[in-house]
């Protein structure tokens, strides 16, 4: 134990927290707004809502075939559709950590903490690899 005073929180943690908070808010806002437009019919979906109950119980490969849903980054071409516009918000949520990690690298470098700067770079590389769509499963 080391006393009753609250210890200071590291600068990089506070910066990470700030970016994380705003990025998560942005992603959620985009996803929820697009979803609201989708379910109210303002932004029609690639897959009509009324047909979904007949599709959402199918295995992935069959669903993709029957709904002509693209894989990889091809979904970006359908971002004007309500269902895929919602996925854009999800993509922001899944990308927030990249921005957070990038934001703290300068703090580590300023302190000469190259190990943690390198760890951040590697973590970003892993996230970008996952997001690239290079790694796929053939059904």
């Amino acid at each position, binding site marked *: 134990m080391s006393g009753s005073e609250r210890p200071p929180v590291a600068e990089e943690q506070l910066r990470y927290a700030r970016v994380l908070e705003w990025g998560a808010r942005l992603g959620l806002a985009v996803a929820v707004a697009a979803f609201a437009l989708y379910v109210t019919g303002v932004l029609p979906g690639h897959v009509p809502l009324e047909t979904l109950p007949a599709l959402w119980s*199918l295995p992935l490969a069959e669903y993709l075939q029957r709904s002509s849903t693209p894989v990889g980054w091809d979904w970006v071409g359908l971002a004007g559709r309500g269902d895929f516009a919602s996925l854009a918000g*999800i993509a922001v*949520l899944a990308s*927030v950590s990249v921005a957070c990690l990038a934001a703290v690298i300068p703090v580590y470098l300023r302190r000469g903490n190259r190990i*943690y700067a390198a760890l951040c770079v590697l973590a970003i590389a892993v996230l970008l690899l996952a997001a690239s769509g290079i790694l796929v499963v053939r059904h």
Partner: protein
Amino acid sequence: MAFACAPDAIAAGAPAVDGATAWWIWPLALFVVCFALGIVAVPAGVGGGVLFVPIVGGFFPFHLDFVRGAGLLVALASALAAGPNLLRVGLADLRLALPLALLASASSIVGALVGLALPSAIVQTALGITILAIVVLMASAKKSEFPDVQAPDKLGAALALHGVFHDVARGESVRWQVHRTPLGLVLFTGIGVLAGMFGLGAGWANVPVLNLVMGAPLKVSAGTSSFILSLVDSSAAWVYLNQGAVLAVVAVPSVAGMMLGARIGARLLTVLKASVVRRLVLGLLLVAGLRALLKGLGVWT
């Protein structure tokens, strides 16, 4: 790309799973269930996905492929919602999280690819077994509020895996350090595979490894575990997204409900003992795990 999704054409070739129920009932039910799960997930030291996948996979009409994709996203949402507060109060430690999250993040990509390649029945059965194993692990694993770490290991010392956190419930600051860092790194690599394969998040495994193996205080373990999930599940979520295994109508209501619930859960973490909500979580997991196992074996479809 051509619009090739005429409702009649789809309905003609697909089973009418829940034709008597309006489509919007299910997203609404998802939102309510995920809000409740979000409240209990963070104080229980789990990511939300471990509750979501067996419960929604067992009792909602969606295929397990989409449930796992959404499961990763709800675990991610829970972690993202709780992360800022946990970092600011020092319950999540960035230094402790980064090396572990890096390996788990990479291995979760492998897990996601394997999970999407396996037949559904195998994944469902394996999920049930995994959930029941988690129940046993959570019920039997000892917890140590403040583990006694006499000295850090060389790698832990080199990575400066130590710190001080303020325990609001006790009204005092606590110094901590970790040991067995190499073993922790290996275990987190395995945890990442399971997280990606089943879409479970991985707080159920993160906390015991951080607390019992590496010797981090229980509250730092729970907070850092939740933060690690934000990195691990991001990687696996991208794999599911790129494979087309994320349905907006499943994912968005789930994510929104979980994020709202997790914000409340993160505030409860500083004032509640984790054991209060763990019993509730164990009961839920037991039922959901049995359901997943029996569904996978074709006994209770």
